[in-house]
């Protein structure tokens, strides 16, 4: 995730990283890593990134922070990660709207 400040709302952190911040720490699936309790409703990437093994980069001139994923399994379990992206006909399309059908996701690129 890329942000303009190292302090981000807890909800945003959880949505972007897949980690859930609970009293016992940061949890994903059955795994929980102890963390100091966040101060209020914001989390400081500078203190959590290292503990979760996530790389954190800072570009002072652009005023941007970039945090990568944590090393480990690409997915926990076989549930296909949901996503919502814009459709060429307009509006957003959510993958989960196709539940009940077989789906081929086909990633392509103009390049």
């Amino acid at each position, binding site marked *: *995730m*890329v942000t303009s400040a190292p302090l981000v709302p807890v909800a945003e952190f959880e949505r972007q990283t897949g980690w859930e911040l609970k009293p016992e720490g940061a949890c994903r699936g059955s795994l929980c890593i102890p963390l100091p309790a966040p101060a209020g409703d914001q989390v400081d990437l500078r203190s959590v990134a290292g503990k979760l*093994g*996530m*790389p*954190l*980069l800072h*570009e002072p*001139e*652009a005023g*941007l922070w*970039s*945090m*990568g*994923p*944590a*090393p*480990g*399994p*690409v*997915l926990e*379990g*076989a*549930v*296909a*990660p*949901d*996503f919502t*992206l*814009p*459709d*060429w*006909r307009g509006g957003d*399309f959510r*993958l*989960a709207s*196709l*539940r*009940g*059908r*077989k*789906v*081929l*996701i*086909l*990633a*392509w*690129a*103009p*390049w």
Partner: protein
Amino acid sequence: MWRELRDELKDRGFEVVTVALETRGWKEARRWIDAAQPEHPSLLDATHLLGELYGIVNVPTGVWIDEQGLLVRPPEPAFPGRPAFLDQPLPDTVNPRLRGVLTEARKLNMEGDRYAAALRDWVAQGADSPYALGPEEVARRLGERSPEACRAAAHFELAQNLEGEAAVVHFKEAHRLQPRNWAYKRQAWSLVDRTQAPNAIYPTGWLEEVRALGAEFYYPPLEFEPEQR
């Protein structure tokens, strides 16, 4: 390219979702989509979110998801057949670089006919298809993100939010950390030169790197046997 197969299978509880990984956004992707006029969802992924979520490192890549929303085939090269233009003779007017690219492209491991046959089998047989993988095999094939790949992801995402030289520094670091991520390379190269030829910024392009690697290793072979649940 997917229209015929989609038309054939769409009334059997099957749908195709095409997703364009393109930092430059609709202005690049629309040229192709407008020409194809797809009836299936055709989405834009301007941040390479699917690369991060599913570990996709090249295109075209296919992922199969069953009726319950479970992955039954993780990312792998996905062609609906062999592109017809590849095997047509090249006119003498074709410039040397394009000739080189097409010569290498002919050697790529595409296996489109096998892929299309497997897809038809899965749509017909569902979980009984030998091509539908169980969760343990899916997890094995998905594998793990290395610390280097995680750092590369942070650099690539940062680069997409920067301009000019500042962006190039981080694109190059992503390339160094995860050299087999062709999505990172081809996207960055194409931002500088659409033909992905060597230039002052990137000393090698698609043709040079594919020749160095060996075109037959560019797309991994489809793992269709042994299939087991």
